[in-house]
């Protein structure tokens, strides 16, 4: 890759370049996190109907055993992340601050890392329909943050045609490096997963899109793909939000998902690398998704790195393990641009959580930060990847013209990437305005 290809590297327009902060963790191999004494496993860790609990208080479960099953087509089962006893099934505060039902699992001291319950299949013998079923049985969801059930995503309706499977390895959020490590350490799992997904979706072509700040991952994968005709790796510009499905498709294929549509409408299915790597690892051995790799980092952490964490581990336990200095902090699940800050250290890591970022005093935005009037600098307009006019939307929001925002200024196409708020020199919390406006419009429509 010469200089020329680096500057002409394909990308979407707009977006921005926040400081990456990836160096702290990108070079550290993935480590395993021990079991917390108590795991908190919410029944709704995915988009769609919550899983249905199939265990009772006091039941003994072994690591890997299903403890909740899919309650609908758009739902997935949940497996026990450790061997132990069900302590209770109760209401807990979830990552987004709402109350939800969770299974509390008291982990046995001697719980082994070995998975004791499995349902192995021979992938070679499966039809695409059977693969979809197997994916659902794993409890697999989009691990990049979307949490959309994977079997549902790979199911192509009869009236649609898919020609390309895109694998999202761009990991554009600052601080996060878990996908990067997965590509470096588990390329064979990823490739196995890609092949399964290609069979499930009946696509002939797969492209792995990786931001060009991870050329080592590009090289590793290219080496592993020497004999693969239909799977290729392509470096894309490092730019936020390259990892958003629509932006990545634009960069790789120069196709635009129609406004209000989904990638399927233009013949593309996008999966995150960790999702497919888990698929390639788990499906052949028939184990459920009971752990995932997350990046634990931020100025408040003594031993930042990437950790393989059992689903349901409370963030307070993780903080003990990685050495946390205390004080005023913000605890963010996922990346700093889109990840929600949580209110309680009891909050568990769920399937779709890609990181735990702890920002302490100097890293947190200064509380007394003044909000000035919009000075019409246009920076938000030049940053918005959806080509909206956040400045105008912001003015309308302060005038409470929520309906006009949606009707005339395409409010609903905003996917809350945060570019506009990040860049605004007047510190206007634009994304927050838009979130409120959308919520009010939803209320009014209902």
């Amino acid at each position, binding site marked *: 890759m010469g200089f020329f290809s680096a500057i002409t590297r394909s990308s979407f327009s707009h977006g921005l370049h926040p400081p990456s902060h990836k160096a702290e963790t990108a070079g550290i191999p993935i480590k395993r996190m021990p079991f917390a004494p108590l795991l908190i496993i919410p029944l709704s860790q995915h988009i769609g109907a919550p899983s249905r609990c199939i265990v009772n208080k006091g039941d003994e479960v072994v690591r890997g055993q299903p403890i909740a099953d899919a309650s609908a087509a758009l739902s997935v089962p949940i497996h026990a992340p450790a061997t132990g006893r069900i302590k209770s099934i109760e209401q807990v505060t979830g990552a987004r601050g709402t109350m939800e039902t969770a299974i509390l699992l008291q982990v046995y001291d001697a719980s082994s890392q070995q998975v004791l319950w499995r349902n192995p299949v021979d992938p070679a013998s499966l039809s695409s329909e059977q693969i979809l079923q197997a994916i659902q049985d794993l409890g697999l969801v989009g691990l990049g943050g979307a949490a959309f059930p994977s079997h549902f995503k790979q199911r192509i309706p009869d009236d649609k045609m898919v020609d390309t499977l895109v694998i999202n390895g761009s990991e554009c959020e600052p601080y996060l490096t878990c996908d990067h490590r997965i590509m470096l350490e588990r390329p064979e799992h990823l490739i196995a997963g890609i092949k399964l997904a290609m069979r499930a979706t009946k696509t002939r072509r797969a492209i792995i899109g990786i931001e060009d700040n991870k050329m080592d991952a590009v090289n590793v994968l290219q080496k592993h793909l020497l004999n693969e005709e239909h799977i290729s790796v392509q470096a894309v510009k490092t730019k936020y939000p390259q990892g958003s499905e629509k932006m990545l498709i634009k960069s790789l294929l120069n196709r635009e998902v129609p406004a209000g549509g989904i990638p399927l409408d233009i013949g593309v299915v996008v999966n995150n690398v960790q999702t497919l790597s888990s698929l390639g690892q788990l499906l052949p051995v028939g184990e459920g998704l009971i752990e995932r790799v997350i990046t634990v980092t931020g100025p408040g952490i003594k031993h930042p790195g990437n950790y393989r964490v059992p689903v349901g581990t409370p963030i307070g336990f993780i903080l003990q393990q990685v050495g946390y*200095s205390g004080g005023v902090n913000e605890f963010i699940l996922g990346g700093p641009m889109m*990840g929600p800050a949580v209110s309680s250290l009891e909050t568990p890591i769920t399937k779709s959580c890609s990181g735990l970022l702890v920002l302490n005093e100097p890293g947190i935005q200064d509380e007394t930060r003044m909000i*000035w009037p919009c000075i019409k*600098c*246009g920076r938000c307009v030049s940053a918005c990847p*959806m080509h909206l006019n956040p400045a105008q939307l912001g003015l309308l929001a302060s005038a409470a013209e929520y309906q006009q925002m949606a009707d005339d200024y395409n409010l609903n*196409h905003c996917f809350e990437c945060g570019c506009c*708020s990040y860049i605004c020199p007047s510190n206007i919390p634009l994304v927050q305005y838009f979130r409120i406006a959308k919520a009010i419009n939803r209320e009014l429509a209902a």
Partner: protein
Amino acid sequence: MSKKPQVELRTTPHLHAPQDVVVIMRNVVFAILPIAAWSIWLFGLSALMLLVIVTASCLITERLFTMANGQVNTLGDWSAIITGLLLALTLPPAFPLWMGVVAGFIAISMGKVMFGGLGMNIFNPALVGRAFVQAAFPVAITSWTPALFEERFSQFIPSTFTAPFMIPVTLDNWNLQYAVDGFTGATPLGLQKFDGISTPVLDLFVGNSAGSSGETSALIIMCCGLYLAIRNMLDWRIPFYIMLGTLLTAGGFYYINPQQYPEPLFMLFSGGLMLGAWFMATDMVGSPVTPLGVVIYGLFIGFLTVIIRLFGGLSEGVMYAILLANAATPLIDQYTTPKVFGHRKQS
């Protein structure tokens, strides 16, 4: 855990770009200072006094209005200082101070407060002030004095201390006494337009010619502007397209009749064009927010400036060109709203 954890809850995004309004405005002030220094070097004490008094007038006016309206003190955002400095730099060095106070008051009150303060104004406040005094004091605003006159650091130009509401003394005699040979009390643009005498482009570029205190050196203005552009605090596209628009339009006329029309480079480096292009037209508040809008806005200003200079009654046209373009900005923004991602052209 050493300290008790305290959980902060904020909304996304949790990061913010390092530049905020104050950082940007402060740097604009810093970038204007060398231009101000050059004008003091050229015109001496009178230019210095004018800068101080006009800026003070702007600051006091802004504070008085926020106090009267019960609003928070907005002086901390540095924008009133920018207005004051820019306004002073567009005035002739011999401009009576009391008229400078009026200009500053009008700039802030009618140019900014009346619209609702920072961010709400349609026009560049400094230009509003300047346009007002142009109409109110047509003689004083065109009374030019020579640059680099010898006693500039030991004495004021006589008109500087004109008593309020008095007509300033005429400078003709004073000019005769102090001026370098042949000074006629006209700017290069005026000379060119009314007498057909052209000033060497190099003099204009370096800036030792008569004119408003801060508009004479294209070189310094460009350097200061470039500093801001490189630090990403000024939209370089605006001065670029203004200059392009000026060159194209002036070049067109020059091509048709080189005898009658001035050469394009003269147009570019004379009068207030440079200061206007780099520091007035780029005022974020009055310029378009859309990428295409910025291009149209710049070309429009360049074009209008040349037209006004060549065919208007005045020798200078930048000020009105920018004000007109400011007025057109909402319209430009509306027509250049970017197409939403995924809205494909009908094919």
